[in-house]
């Protein structure tokens, strides 16, 4: 494509493909109920965004759902990163048939779908049904594979000599891992953090089975109110909710954009 035409094509494409759906969200979130019943791209005659935020905040009990989401996302991400990198480090450094088999088994969860129905039965037997702890366990079972995959690949690119130095100074494996390896993993852990945050923060399917009706998270809450009579045809409130829910991730992404992009792409093409 010629160099003069390319910028025009880019602007038109962004405006149509991304701009229109995003504008629909923002414009509808700014409308009153009457104006929003038939969602369209006309700008609101008066902006009601703050009123809508206030209404969603109170009616849909957003603060409780927000706390529920944090209560699950934060421990999940912390545990999946630490335990996943511990395993990945040893898998990457020890080349044996056993570790090869364990690695293959460990990453198969990236592709294989989790057993959403029977996991409910298992959690009931463990006394974890409907609890945050049970939900965290299920997410760990699903996303440890992703962390093991990304981190093992990354550890293989780090020279082992860096560990030797600490070892000669008498550091045990745990000290080597914590003081030498973990800091070196920062770029790949940043990527894994955003990926896992993305999946867990936005998940509604697994959450529905494990904690649906017992504990609220933002997506579960959105799903419930959007499917219930309360929000039927209340597009202005649904889209206000969408904005509220997406904002934390957009902020995280804006702050760490460069690192995230290089991390995601590095892991996938090598």
């Amino acid at each position: 494509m010629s160099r003069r035409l390319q910028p025009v094509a880019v602007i038109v494409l962004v405006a149509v493909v991304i701009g229109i759906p995003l504008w629909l969200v923002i414009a509808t979130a700014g409308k009153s109920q009457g104006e929003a019943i038939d969602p369209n791209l006309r700008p609101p005659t008066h902006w009601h965004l703050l009123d809508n935020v206030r209404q969603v905040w109170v009616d849909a009990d957003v603060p409780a759902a927000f706390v529920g989401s944090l209560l699950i996302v934060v421990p999940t991400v912390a545990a999946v990163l630490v335990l996943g990198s511990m395993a990945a480090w040893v898998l990457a450094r020890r080349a044996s048939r056993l570790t090869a088999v364990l690695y293959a088994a460990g990453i198969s969860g990236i592709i294989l779908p989790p057993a959403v129905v029977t996991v409910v039965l298992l959690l009931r037997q463990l006394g974890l049904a409907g609890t945050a702890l049970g939900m965290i366990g299920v997410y760990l079972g699903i996303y440890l594979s992703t962390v093991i995959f990304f981190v093992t690949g990354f550890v293989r690119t780090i020279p082992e000599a860096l560990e030797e130095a600490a070892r000669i100074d008498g550091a045990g494996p745990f000290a080597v891992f914590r003081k030498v390896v973990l800091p070196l993993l920062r770029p790949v852990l940043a990527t894994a953090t955003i990926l896992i945050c993305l999946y867990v923060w936005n998940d509604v399917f697994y959450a529905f089975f494990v904690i649906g009706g017992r504990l609220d998270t933002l997506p579960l809450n959105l799903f419930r109110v959007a499917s219930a009579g309360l929000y039927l045809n209340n597009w202005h409130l649904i889209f206000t909710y969408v904005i509220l829910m997406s904002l934390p991730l957009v902020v995280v992404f804006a702050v760490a954009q460069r690192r995230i992009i290089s991390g995601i792409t590095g892991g996938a093409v090598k």
Partner: protein
Amino acid sequence: MTTAIGRRTHPLWFLLPAYALLLVFFVLPTAYQFVYAFTDWSGFKASINPVGVDNLTQLASDGTLFRALRITVVYAVLVAIFQNVFGFGLAVLLERDTALNRIARTFFLIPVLMSALAVGYVFQALLKGTGALADTTWTLPVVALIHAWKWMGLAMLIYLAGLKTIPLDLLEAARLDGASRWHSFWRVRAPLLAPAVTFNVATALLGSMNGFDIVQATTGGGPARTTELLNIFIYRTFGQGLFAQATTMSLVLFLLVALMAFPVIVLLRRREEVL
């Protein structure tokens, strides 16, 4: 590294917490599926008894099983095609590192960050009144397009990274040999993108077979259950208390993905070697 030293410096107990969790929360429920798919487990009675292959024969005989399988596979194939065509096109269009291109790339990543549920509601509102979500033939491709819209930014990033790994001197050599831009693109660059294609096609294909949110939020499986993916069926029957039927379909999904994963990955890997 010898095993004796490895045992001391990289002890296997480091694997223990992660693999214990994988065993309890992933392997065990998966194993349960092979048991409870053959029982009468339901929300209506306390006891659970074995019933052999009754659930499977019942789902097969009323056509539900094969319809859900067909819909899921068609959906996954369409998503894989759309997502890769869009992602690749965007990567080629936005390849040069100009300020405008960088901003445009960020815009295409916004759908990746949004919840799939939210994306579904956005398109439900956008397409309301057009009939695009009420056609028994065309709604499935429309929903696959929406799925691809959400994830094309990620495919774009991976193709961009793939394009960057191609050494410049290779292109230079092709140019000196008199290859046209079109020619050098397809003969020199495209083959080197094979790892990116493998990753993108495999994740799009196998990931969308496990799809739920977008379809649930746009059509809920309708019209006339023509977009009812396996996961939508599982969600619906679970909600009705028909746990054994839901488990049976979940087992079917597991086997479908497991059976498709192997040939898909081997096939794409082999293509890489040939090229």
